[in-house]
């Protein structure tokens, strides 16, 4: 692909390190934390880990629809990768995230964050964590790849400045590193996420979810009322964002023991059938009024049929195709979560090596 236009200067005016840290901060080029300054040498070291030309266009991004798509090259992604503190060997993962064209810094006033899940051999090659503390700040690759995704999003889309290009009313702390972790494929009783999305088990793939506003939390599945407990959790997810079950391997096994879900698809079907709400209450939710009801009146299915239900009829909140299940955690206990998160895209990491 041709190189992008040269409307943004390649270099920043020379200055001392302290001055540059301040310059980057004042220009809203950081996440508020100190960054690794992207010198020519550091950027060049990052570029060694891809076969793609520095001037190749990777994609386009914008903070919200209708704002205008900004374009970026491999070198521009490398600059942001350096800033995050990522090691050069992580670069293909970061390039794949950039190639998704899904911004981790969407401007939605609902304060969304991205969630990034890595599958395949790259997890071990770069030492990602899928076990104890995988979703926390305990692994360099998890931490910096996620941070790089946020930084590249805000800078390559033309900014994420509160009041202008970021309007999240409350903000979202998950956005610091976009909840980046590896799936615990080895301890999962089911096929991994990327295989579900059409890739081979031996492919290295990064998948992006978006939302992460509502989080449900539980310990295990009790024999007598586990169905009702999970139903209550599902009703706590924002109704226009499908659930992604984040299961410790212990809980994944419990779903098989309690419910007989030897196939992940069976569990997803059960979640779809279990997550219900009375129609009158469902349609009265403001999020549903804003984002689902207009489509129902437009005639789109299944929303149009759902709209015909009497107010007291239980209707299904989430469409089956939108529900996901991921196994993560180190089996220190059977704690698990439901994240309200919409699946956006899976991108081959191997294509960016």
């Amino acid at each position, binding site marked *: 692909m041709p190189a*992008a*236009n*040269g*409307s*943004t*200067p*390649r*270099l*920043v005016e*020379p200055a*001392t*390190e*302290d001055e*540059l840290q301040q310059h*980057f901060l004042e220009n809203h*080029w950081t996440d508020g934390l100190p960054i690794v*300054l*992207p*010198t*020519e040498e550091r*950027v060049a070291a990052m570029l060694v880990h891809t076969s793609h030309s520095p001037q190749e266009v990777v994609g386009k*991004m914008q903070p*919200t*629809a*209708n*704002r*205008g*798509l*900004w*374009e*970026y090259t491999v*070198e*521009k992604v490398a*600059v*942001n990768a350096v*800033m995050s503190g990522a090691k050069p060997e992580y670069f293909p993962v970061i390039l794949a995230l950039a190639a998704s064209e899904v911004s981790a810094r969407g*401007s*939605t*006033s609902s304060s969304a964050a991205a969630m990034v899940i890595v599958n395949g051999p790259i997890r071990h090659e770069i030492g990602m964590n899928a076990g104890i503390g995988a979703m926390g700040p305990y692994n360099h690759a998890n931490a910096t790849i996620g941070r790089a995704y946020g*930084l590249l999003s805000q*800078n*390559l889309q*033309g*900014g994420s400045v509160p*009041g*202008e*290009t*970021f*309007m*999240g009313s409350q903000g979202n702390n998950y956005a610091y590193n976009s909840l980046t972790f590896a799936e615990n494929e080895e301890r999962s009783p089911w096929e991994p996420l990327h295989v579900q999305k059409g890739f081979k088990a031996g492919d290295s793939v990064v998948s992006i979810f978006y939302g992460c506003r509502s989080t449900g939390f539980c310990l295990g599945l009790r024999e007598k009322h586990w169905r009702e407990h999970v139903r209550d959790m599902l009703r706590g997810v924002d109704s226009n964002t499908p659930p992604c079950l984040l299961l410790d391997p212990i809980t994944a096994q419990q779903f098989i023991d309690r419910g007989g879900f030897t196939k992940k698809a069976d569990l997803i079907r059960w979640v779809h059938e279990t997550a219900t709400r009375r129609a009158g209450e469902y349609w009265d939710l*403001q999020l549903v*009024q*804003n*984002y689902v*009801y*207009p*489509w129902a*009146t*437009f005639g*789109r299915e299944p929303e149009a049929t759902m709209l015909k239900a009497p107010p007291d009829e239980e209707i299904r909140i989430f469409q089956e195709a939108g529900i996901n299940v991921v196994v993560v955690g180190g089996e220190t206990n059977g704690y698990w979560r439901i994240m309200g998160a919409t699946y956006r895209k899976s991108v081959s990491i191997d294509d960016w090596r």
Partner: protein
Amino acid sequence: MIAPDRKSDLKITVLNPMGYPPEITRKSAAPRPESLEGKTIYLVDARFDDSIELLKQVQAWFAEHMSGVKTKLVSMSAYYGHDDPKTWEEIKQNGDAAIIGVGHCSTCAPAVATHAITLDTKYGVPTVALHTEKFDKVVKSVTKMGGLADAPTVYVPMPVMGKSADELRAYVNGLDPITGRPVMLEVVEALTTQLSAA
């Protein structure tokens, strides 16, 4: 005493992390009528939160203060984020001007601004967009990128959601919090004053 860090005096060169902005194609707004008397104005509900409730108060204002103006309140066909050629075509065929709103979220404000530009520049319908004041910078950024930096825009206070009819009437009868000028004076001016050529 701490020894000075000698490296801190050294000037270094680093790379700029920003992407490349899109090229802007400038557009021209539709000609405005000298007066709205006898004209039909479409009030277009973007269907986010209680947009329609505010537009009902705009409609009531015209009935009370400019009874020679006909108004028609319509809702967009579906979700505000999608273009709505069917509605725009109806307005072009049957209307003389349009008021669209309300832009009061991070995605609907850009959408409302974009729909207003579409109506004005593609369908030739003089249009003004109503937004809440929180989104003024968002709107300015979008109209600039959309090629009509001076797209007519009027602001009301935030929030609109959950406000009573009396409260929304006060918004409509009150002042634009960005400019300090009467909201409806700005609306009428926006639909009757020619925009300078791009």
